[in-house]
């Protein structure tokens, strides 16, 4: 029916952004909100349309291309403005548009009365355009367009309160950290182009394009060795791309920007820094699974970084007082989970976690936003408590979110997290100690997750009403009691809560019911994900072909592990409940509270040396002193030489005569002797 549904999905928000950006200043808030939500709604509708129109094909692993125009074409290099729909991008646009729509709705309420309302929605729409471009691009360069575009919007939105220095700093930090990652990404793309001769994902005979993934599939995989990373082959490509992912998805070592990014308005945090943008790294790695499966060393790195980040961020999350910071570290931690999944080859599990995470983390952020609005822009949990009775809907929806993220059985997070833990434990691609180790880390993280989420809920909604202790400043939004949020904010909470509770059932492990094909998500996404080579057999559930004989024992193992993680989750919840109900203001270790001093270390070891070095060494010493010194020195030398030679001109005729004689003597001598 529609020839270019993806184009509509992508460009509808851009239209909104353009309209709002150019004319929004003179519009009413209602009109602005309507335009913003409408354009995203259009996107959502067409995303669903595109998905369900081609559902059968997608399940069968077909790719649907939409070619708009050739963007750059020089020599053998070509990058098109073209989109591709496969099951991976299909599922992505579904939840991105859906979640985004509800966040937009939430934001119309949340942002009411703010300066630059139009600006906010223009940025938000622009973000949607970028994010969707990122997802449906059919080549790495166009993906990079979206990749950088979301970075830009993130920059703009974090710095939305541009008179606040911390917001500006956070925005800048986010952009630059992302740029560091992009450096790797770009190098990866260039290396890919060099090796594969193409930056397109797939073949498209209609345009005479050969995909890089087909090249990757045809390669003999690298061995699992440290050296392979630097060999300039496929492992190097994979690692470089992953560097990009660490930036965008806030992994060690580039994660520090994400907590600061909470300086932006809460809907931004929900949309960009929880549900969509930060998962771009996971998307990209999954997208490039054909490359990763040939690069075991890169896989191992991804897994280690993922698991490490998950644990690391979770420990920090326990010790934060800012409600959004807790969620931010939680996000980092969950992203680590997703990468862990990718690293062990369970790309679908990773994507599944992205999917469920989008719902429950968006929910949690919006809930926190609701709390913040209700508390008159208070984010410090020191000054909360007992909000349950003031904000009942917010409380209940957030409780759902908390259970989901903690992996409470049958909530969405349970299924996705469980899939990851199981696949980690059972992965066949990593050598011996790693699966167990990573699994243990994952499990520990799950425990911590349950604890810090419980802490958040307890400190916010239970216990004493600590906000009374601190009188608000008179000018701070008028003060007064906390209150429940308006419908425009509450409705999205409810919708997302329903989602957070239920979407997990799309991916129930097949093992749960003998012989049943419960895991629809798995079956949907798998065709878009590359399978490993023979010597690199994955023993996870991706492979339906793994053999029936093995299946039963694996199924037993999977159920056992699910039980273990359920127990851990419940234990964590309980631990948190009891501990923090008793000591809500328990002082966490300073090391954790100060985030392991990572920011300070970066400042001392990178930022200050660069700044000081540039000022003192490069500018003052080399540029002004050395180079300009040489230039001016040469000029001075010339005039000094001139100044010296002018003394030949003593003014005395006799000395001139002597000089002439001297010249004559030399000349004659030369002529006579020659």
């Amino acid at each position, binding site marked *: 029916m529609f020839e270019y549904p993806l184009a509509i999905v992508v460009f509808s928000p851009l239209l909104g952004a353009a309209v709002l950006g150019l004319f929004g200043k003179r519009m009413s808030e209602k009109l602005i909100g309507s335009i913003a939500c409408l354009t995203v709604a259009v996107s959502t509708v067409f995303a669903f349309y595109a998905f369900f129109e081609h559902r059968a094909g997608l399940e069968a692993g077909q790719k649907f291309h939409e070619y708009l125009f050739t963007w750059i074409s020089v020599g053998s290099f070509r990058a098109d403005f073209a989109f591709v729909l496969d099951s991976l991008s299909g599922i992505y646009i579904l939840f991105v548009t859906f979640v985004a729509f509800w966040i937009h709705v939430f934001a119309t309420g949340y942002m009411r009365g703010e300066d630059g309302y139009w600006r906010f929605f223009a940025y938000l729409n622009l973000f949607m355009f970028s994010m969707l471009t990122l997802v449906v691009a059919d080549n790495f360069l166009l993906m990079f367009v979206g990749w950088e575009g979301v970075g830009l919007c993130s920059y703009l939105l974090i710095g939305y309160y541009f008179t606040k220095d911390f917001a500006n700093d956070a925005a800048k930090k986010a952009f630059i950290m992302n740029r560091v990652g992009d450096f790797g990404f770009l190098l990866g793309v260039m290396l890919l182009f060099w090796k594969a001769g193409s930056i397109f994902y797939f073949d498209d005979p209609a345009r005479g394009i050969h995909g890089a993934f087909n090249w990757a599939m045809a390669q003999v995989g690298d061995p699992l060795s440290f050296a392979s990373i630097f060999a300039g082959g496929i492992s190097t490509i994979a690692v470089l791309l992953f560097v990009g992912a660490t930036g965008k998805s806030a992994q060690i070592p580039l994660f520090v920007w994400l907590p600061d990014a909470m300086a932006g308005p809460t809907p931004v945090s929900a949309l960009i820094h929880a549900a969509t943008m930060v998962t771009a790294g996971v998307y990209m790695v999954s997208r490039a699974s054909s490359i990763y499966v040939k690069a075991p060393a890169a896989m191992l790195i991804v897994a280690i970084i993922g698991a490490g980040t998950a644990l690391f961020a979770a420990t920090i999350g326990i010790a934060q007082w800012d409600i959004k910071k807790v969620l931010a570290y939680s996000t980092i931690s969950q992203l680590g989970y997703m990468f862990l999944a990718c690293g062990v080859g369970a790309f679908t599990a990773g994507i599944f976690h992205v999917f469920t995470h989008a719902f429950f983390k968006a929910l949690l952020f919006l809930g926190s936003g609701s709390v913040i609005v209700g508390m008159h822009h208070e984010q410090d949990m020191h000054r909360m408590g007992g909000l349950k009775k003031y904000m009942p809907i917010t409380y209940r929806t957030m409780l759902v979110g908390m259970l989901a993220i903690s992996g409470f059985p049958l909530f969405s997070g349970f299924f996705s997290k469980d899939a990851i833990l199981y696949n980690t434990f059972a992965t066949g691609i990593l050598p011996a100690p790693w699966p167990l180790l990573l699994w243990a880390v994952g499990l520990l993280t799950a425990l911590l997750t349950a604890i810090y989420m419980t802490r958040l809920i307890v400190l916010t909604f239970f216990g004493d009403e600590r906000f009374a202790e601190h009188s608000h400043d008179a000018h701070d939004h008028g003060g007064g009691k906390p209150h429940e949020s308006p419908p425009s904010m509450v409705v999205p909470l409810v919708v997302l809560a329903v989602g957070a509770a239920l979407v997990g059932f799309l991916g129930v492990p097949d093992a749960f019911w003998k012989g049943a094909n419960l895991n629809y998500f798995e079956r949907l996404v798998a065709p878009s994900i590359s399978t490993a080579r023979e010597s690199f057999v994955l023993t996870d559930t991706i492979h339906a072909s793994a053999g029936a004989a093995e299946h039963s024992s694996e199924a037993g193992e999977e159920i056992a592990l699910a039980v273990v993680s359920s127990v851990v989750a419940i234990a964590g919840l309980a631990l948190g409940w009891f501990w923090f109900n008793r000591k809500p203001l328990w002082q966490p270790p300073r090391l954790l509270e100060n985030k392991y001093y990572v920011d300070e270390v970066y400042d001392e070891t990178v930022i200050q040396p660069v700044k000081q070095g540039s000022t003192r060494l490069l500018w003052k010493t080399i540029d002004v002193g050395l180079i300009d010194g040489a230039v001016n020195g040469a000029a001075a030398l010339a005039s000094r*030489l001139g100044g010296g030679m002018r003394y030949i001109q003593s003014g005395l005729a006799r000395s001139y*005569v002597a000089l*002439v004689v001297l010249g*004559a003597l030399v000349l004659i001598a030369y002529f006579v002797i020659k």
Partner: protein
Amino acid sequence: MEPNQIGINYQAILPETITGGVAIIIMMIDALSRRIERRVAGGLSLLGLAGAAVSVATMWGRNAEPSFRGMIVTDQFRLFFALIFLVVSFLIVLISIRWIQEEQLPTGEYFALLMFATTGMLFMSAANDLVMIFLGLEITSISTYVLCGYRRTDLRSNESAMKYFILGSFSTAFLLYGMAFVYGASFQAGARPAATTNLQLLKERISSGALFSPEMLFAGAAMMIVGFGFKVATAPFHVWSPDVYEGAPTPVTAFLSTGSKAAAFAAFCRVFILTLAAAPIAESALMHSIHSVWVNALQVMAILTMTLGNLVAIVQGNIKRMLAYSSIAHAGYALVGMVASDWKAVAFYLLSYVVINIGAFAIIEVFAQRGDKRTEISDYAGIGFQSLGLATALSLFLLSLAGIPLTAGFMAKLIVFKSAWGSGFHVLVVIAVINSAISWYYYLRVIVAMFFADQQPEFKAPTLNRSFAAALVLTIIATLYLGILPGRVLDTLDRATDQISRARK
């Protein structure tokens, strides 16, 4: 003996006769009417110079004709240089008419001396014999000694004249001694004449390789280089020029730095390039040897001259003195052309150089006001926009001296450098090029002072008379013409011949 045997050819010396005659007429009018009107004297001079130019032009295209028993020769070398001299004198007369009135100096003698000097210069380019070169040189020198001291009550003018005189006659002695040596070297037993100062005969004898004493030839050549080098102001024989240029009245400085320099180059070229230079093949070893020796010497001198001129010019505070050093540097560039043994390049260089330099000095003269009061570069601060036309013109001339394209200065340098490069003097060209870059600094300094510095309240824009304006317009047009459409001049020069080798006594 019949006149034609003596080689009397009045037409051959017509230009010199006219200029000399005009000088005498001016003196006579001055003497008879007690005081000659400056316009009359100037007008007569211009008329005479124009007439001389016409007579030169009518001689163009004729084959080389030695006359007066080989004393002079009428080849295109001579005629081209004669035109340069006439242009110089013409312009100098134009810019002097205003000046001589302002300074209230004796008018008749001034123009007469100028015309005498011109006569001498014309003889220098025409000369085909060392005697004539010497005579022409002396006529020019002695008249310019006087002109330098023309502002008798001014100490600077006195000093200028004295230094020029002492050093000038001293170097002339060297030149003469060199000529004597060459004369001595040229002896060939049994030949008629036995020894010679005639350049063609000299060339033949050197080419034949049978000389009385090659050593004397070499020593003589060296001493002649001293003499000529002095006149063209090349290091280390340049020492007189900054002092003399600074002290002499500005129009005279203009004349010294252009006319007498060009005349000296003419003689220099005549002796060295046309006489002592080897054709590529079929020359005696002696000729090759003397050629390579003087080329080497001049190469070193050119480098010294350019570098010294440019470097010392940087630190000068007086604009006349700065231009004196600049003209030393320019002598260096012209020497590059001599090193390439290409008189055409040198001639074109000089033509361009004289036009530009006279233009520059003309403006300096009006800015200097009576008695050369304002000649410090600091006096030029901010006058650019108060006297926009003059300052712009001066900028044009200075940039042209620096060698900005589309002006004569660039074409001149290009031709010379090209010639030198073509002859294989690559290092020399590179050094010359670096020197050009250095020279930008001090030319720009004046422009900086005029346009970029703060204005001076006490400065009054000078008024110009018609003759001066004419000179300015002519120099500007010539500067641009030679820079943009040098084709005609270059073509003429390209086809010009120096038939010294074919001319016979």
